[in-house]
C-alpha cells in the first residue's frame, strides 16, 4: 500500500474547502432546510416533513419536465460527442491552419449564454430571422414560437452550435497527445483508417471524452438561460426543462418548499447519473 508521507499538504486544500463550504455547502444546507418546511414569507417557517417530496415525486408536471430534460440531454450528447470527435479528426495537426481552426472552434464558447439564446431567437424568427425566413421561403412550414417540434429542433441546434466546440477542443487535445510512433506502427501493419481510429485514437481519447461527456451531461442537465431566452419554455410547456420549471415554482409561484424538494431530487439525479457515467468509463479504461 502506498501511503502519503507528508500529510501537511492537506492544509493547502483548506482555503478551497472553506470556499466550497461557503458557496456550495451552506446554500445546499439551506435548500435541505427549506425542503421540509412551508413558508409564507417574513422568515416564518412551519414544519411540513416529507410532504413536498411526496408531492413533487407524484406530480405529473415533474415527470413531464424530467422526461423533457432527459430527452434534451441524451439528444445533445448523441449529436455533440460523435460530431465533436469527427471535427477533431478532420482538423489539421500541423501548420498555420491549426491556430485558425482552434480560434474558430473556441469562439462559440466565448459567447455568454443569454446572448446565444437571444442570437438564436432572432436568427430563427420566421418573419425576420435568416434561418426562419429561409426555411419558410423554401416551403418548409417553420415557426418555433408555435410549433413544438420546430422549437425542439431549434433548441437542440442551438446547443449543438454552442457546445460542440468544447468536445472538439477536448478530443483534439487527446488526439495531438498521441505519439507518432503509434501511427508509424499502424502504417507498418497496414492498418486501415478505421482500425487506427478504433484501436489507437479512440482508446487514447477515452479520458478526455469521459471529461467531455461528463461536462456536457452536467451542463445540459442544468441548462437554463439559453432555452429560457430562446423559447421561454414554450410553445405551451413543450420545452419547459427541469430548471425552467424549477424557477417557475420557486420565483414565479414563490413555493419555496416544493421548489427546494424538487432541487434536491434534481441534484440527486445529476449526482447519480454523473457517478454512473464516470464509473462505467473508468472501469472500461481499467480493462
Amino acid at each position, binding site marked *: 500500500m502506498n501511503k502519503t508521507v507528508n500529510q501537511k499538504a492537506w492544509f493547502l486544500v483548506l482555503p478551497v474547502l472553506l470556499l466550497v463550504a461557503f458557496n456550495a455547502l451552506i446554500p445546499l444546507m*439551506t435548500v435541505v*432546510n427549506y425542503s*421540509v418546511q412551508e413558508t409564507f414569507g417574513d422568515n416564518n417557517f412551519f414544519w411540513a416533513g*416529507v410532504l413536498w417530496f*411526496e408531492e413533487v415525486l407524484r406530480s405529473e408536471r415533474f415527470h413531464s419536465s424530467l422526461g423533457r430534460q432527459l430527452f434534451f440531454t441524451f439528444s445533445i450528447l448523441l449529436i455533440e460527442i460523435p460530431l465533436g470527435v469527427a471535427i477533431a479528426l478532420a482538423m489539421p495537426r500541423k501548420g498555420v491552419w491549426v491556430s485558425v481552426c482552434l480560434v474558430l472552434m473556441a469562439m462559440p464558447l466565448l459567447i455568454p449564454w443569454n446572448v446565444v439564446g437571444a442570437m438564436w431567437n432572432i436568427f430563427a424568427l420566421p418573419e425576420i430571422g435568416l434561418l426562419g425566413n429561409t426555411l419558410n421561403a423554401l416551403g418548409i412550414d417553420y415557426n418555433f414560437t408555435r410549433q413544438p417540434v420546430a422549437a425542439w429542433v431549434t433548441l437542440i441546434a442551438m446547443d449543438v452550435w454552442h457546445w460542440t466546440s468544447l468536445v472538439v477542443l477536448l478530443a483534439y487535445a487527446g488526439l495531438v497527445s498521441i505519439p507518432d510512433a503509434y501511427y508509424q506502427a499502424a502504417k507498418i501493419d497496414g492498418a486501415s483508417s478505421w482500425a487506427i481510429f478504433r484501436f489507437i485514437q479512440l482508446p487514447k481519447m477515452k479520458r478526455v471524452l469521459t471529461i467531455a461527456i461528463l461536462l456536457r451531461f452536467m451542463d445540459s442537465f442544468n441548462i437554463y438561460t439559453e432555452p429560457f431566452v430562446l423559447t421561454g419554455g414554450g410553445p405551451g410547456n413543450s420545452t419547459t426543462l427541469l430548471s425552467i420549471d424549477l424557477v417557475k415554482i420557486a420565483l414565479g409561484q414563490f413555493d419555496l418548499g416544493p421548489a427546494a424538494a424538487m432541487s434536491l431530487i434534481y441534484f440527486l439525479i445529476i449526482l447519480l447519473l454523473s*457517478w454512473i457515467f464516470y464509473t462505467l468509463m473508468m472501469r472500461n479504461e481499467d480493462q
Partner: protein
Amino acid sequence: MGLSWMAWTWPTAAFFIFIGLCIATLGVWEYFRPGGDPRRGVFMIDTTRGDRLFISLLGSAFIFLAWLGLVNSTLYWPLVIVVLWTLFVFRYV
C-alpha cells in the same frame, strides 16, 4: 448576522451532523486501520471505503425517494432497507 435565514430545524441539523460524523468516523477508521488499495466487489467496480460510503448514502437517498414516490406508508420500512443496503455495500461492493 443571524442564521434564521437558513431556517434550521432539529431534524435537518441531525441529518447533517450524521453525515459529518460518518465522514469523520471514516477518517478516524482509515487513520488507525488503513483500508488499503481499492477492492473489486459484486458490482465489478473498484471501491475504497470512501466510495462505499458514497454509494451507501446515494443509494439510501434513492431508496427513500422511491418509497415516498411509490408507497404511501411509514418511513421505518425504507429505513430498514437502507440499513441492509449499507451493510451490503460495505461487505460486498
